[in-house]
């Protein structure tokens, strides 16, 4: 599913943010990604959700080399990836419902076909009462839950999450972890970047450690 070999990344002429990163994730794998702030976790995730291209090395996703993916194929690959952004990236002019439904809407699905699923998922993450509210009035935790709901609504094959429990209380964090584990049990491959050691302990899943751009498979 994911194959990185000697991947390096630098922004412009700056120093290398990621150095010789190599790892493989097979379908159904569940990994945590840990490391101090500034270690390059978010940059690595950006590479994986095709927001950036590696400056060297090879990155293959779903069997495709990212450098040779045709423009018209890119959206289809991105639809197989769910992303939870650290800064949520909700659209302020859309309601919580519309934000969560966005991946289905851009795939040209009708509202009729996804309305029930979106409401069920909002109910599950405890946001059904905020379905018609807009992001500026949501709390940090609510925004995070909406962002997670948006990432999983289209049942992606690969879920990438950047600090998905950073703004929620331990009870909700545990609930979200169960959601991730359940999705993984149903076949979704997971890579979750987090600082939350308790979460990693609870999940009993392997972790990769990134420090100063170098990845250490623990």
């Amino acid at each position, binding site marked *: 599913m994911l194959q990185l070999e000697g991947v390096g990344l630098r922004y412009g002429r700056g120093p290398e943010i990621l150095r010789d990163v190599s790892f493989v994730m097979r379908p159904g794998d569940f990994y945590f990604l840990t490391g101090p702030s500034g270690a390059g976790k978010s940059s690595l995730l950006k590479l994986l*959700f*095709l*927001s*950036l*291209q590696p400056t060297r090395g090879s990155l293959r996703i779903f069997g495709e080399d990212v450098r040779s993916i045709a*423009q*018209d194929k*890119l*959206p*289809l690959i*991105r*639809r197989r990836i769910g*992303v939870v952004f650290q800064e949520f*990236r909700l*659209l302020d*002019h*859309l*309601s919580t419902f*519309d934000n969560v*439904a*966005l*991946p289905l*809407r*851009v*795939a*040209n699905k009708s*509202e009729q076909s996804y309305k029930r699923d979106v409401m069920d998922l909002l109910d599950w993450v405890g946001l059904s009462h905020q379905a*018609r509210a807009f992001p500026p009035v949501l709390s940090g935790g609510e925004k995070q839950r909406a962002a997670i709901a*948006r990432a999983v609504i*289209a049942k992606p094959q690969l879920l990438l999450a950047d600090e998905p429990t950073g703004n929620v209380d331990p009870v909700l964090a545990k609930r979200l972890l169960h959601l991730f584990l359940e999705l993984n049990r149903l076949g979704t491959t997971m890579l979750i970047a987090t600082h939350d050691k308790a979460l990693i302990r609870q999940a009993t899943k392997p972790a990769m450690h990134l420090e100063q751009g170098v990845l250490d498979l623990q």
Partner: protein
Amino acid sequence: MKPGPIIPSNVASLKSLTVTMAVMSYLACLAIGALILVDRAVTNWTSGLAREMTVQVRQVKSVDINAEVEKVRKILDGFPGIITVEVLGPEVGAKLLEPWLGEGSLEGLPVPRLIRVVTDEEAPPDLAVLEDRLAEAQGVHLDTHRKWEAELTRMARALTILSYAILLLISVSAIAIVVFATRAVLQANRPVVELLHLVGARNSYIARQIDGRFLRSGLLSGFMGVFMGLLTFLLLGMTGVEAGNGFAAASRSLLFASPDIAIWSYGVLFAVPVAATAICLVTSRVTLLRRLGGAM
């Protein structure tokens, strides 16, 4: 509840584009109006000129000019393709020379006599044969107005080319304005566009979310331009009622022509909103797809 618009309409509003495109449409209407008027005037002039000829009989020493005029009239009367022959009195020739020679000073001068000839448009006379026949009389010159017709046609062609050039410039400016406006909308909505890409939106899907606004802007500005253009022609027509010619008469003839001409004129004028909409829609779509294609 209807899903909200994916691209917010209040970010990078297209009001300025609508106003600018309305001005462009207005200018296009004026240029088209001028084009129609020139075309109509030239058609009238040239058909009038083509139907008419003048035969000039000059005084020749020791020849009776009246006898020559009568000889010419007889030739013309029976000639195939000639409908009307009108011998103008000596005072007409004198009147034509008045601006140069002044009033009452033509006594005893050899002023030529003029004969007005109206030809059949469907079956015009054979001019070569006619000239041969007219040579039987002395001091005769046939003026077919071809020179004037050629001058008028040349002037009309120049005005027509000028009007088309103005229309072309307006179109090019309009395209440039729409390109800039499209870039501004994309720039202002960059975070939204980025997110749409990341959740798997195709470029064509994103373009569709934006170009609907350009379609509305083009349509609205086009109709505003035509409305202002028609209002201008109406005001010009109303303000110059007394004059009976010039801009006023031209504007009135444009607005209140006979139905067969009016349908064509209004049809061409109302092509402006269609063109403005097409320019907005096609240019924004092409610009969007090109710019979005450059983003990963």
